[in-house]
């Protein structure tokens, strides 16, 4: 059997050390992520045994912590524009996952509600989507669903 190049991916992460990546964990970001436009390949990895994820770049020591928007009280309704739908090769809404980038400042978790990470689990494409609404902020304190 011929071995594919992506079958045995190992990337180095400051968080995990050397890690093996499964092909289904790989997402292609054709436009990169704002600030890291040079990076196109990322691995979406469950963080330990939590419900959080890290999005780990392949070729750089860049990892972001992500929280599924569905776990927060801040699950926005927004309509994806056609350009984004085409970019992600999306067929139906069910195949889309929306995650917020987490940032900790002085022990308080914040999410970037304005620019979530959107992934298509079928096409394995991703992008950072910008919500076109001036009232939505890039930094809001995280409120967990059902949390206090």
């Amino acid at each position, binding site marked *: 059997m011929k071995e594919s190049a992506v079958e045995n991916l190992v990337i180095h992460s*400051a*968080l995990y050390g050397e890690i093996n990546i499964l092909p289904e964990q790989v997402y292609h970001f054709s436009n990169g992520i*704002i600030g890291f436009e040079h990076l196109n390949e990322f691995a979406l990895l469950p963080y330990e045994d*939590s419900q959080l994820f*890290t999005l780990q770049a392949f070729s750089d020591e860049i990892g972001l912590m992500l929280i599924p928007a569905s776990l927060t009280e801040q699950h926005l309704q927004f309509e994806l524009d056609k*350009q984004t739908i085409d970019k992600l090769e999306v067929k139906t809404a069910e195949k889309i996952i929306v995650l917020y980038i*987490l940032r900790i400042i002085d022990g308080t978790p914040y999410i970037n509600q304005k620019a979530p990470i959107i992934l298509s689990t079928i096409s394995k494409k991703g992008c950072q989507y910008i919500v076109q609404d001036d009232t939505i902020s890039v930094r809001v304190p995280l409120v967990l669903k059902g949390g206090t």
Partner: protein
Amino acid sequence: MLVLKRKVGEVIRIANDIEVHVLAVEGEVIKLGFNAPKHISILRSEVFEAIKSENINAIVSKPDDTRFVLEKLGLGNKKPNN
């Protein structure tokens, strides 16, 4: 930097397919309209810079950072029936 003077109602064209319309001038505020292909992202610079800054500052490099978050959020374990 290329500097052009335009009046209200006039248009600037960038490459073959991008148009910038000067729609109105109200005191210090200029209202611009853009016609561009869908793949061209048009954003206020401060929005772009704010997102970029948040992204760069959100990079996690130490396992301690993330463990702290898990504990803080009580997200350390999956639901039992998973």
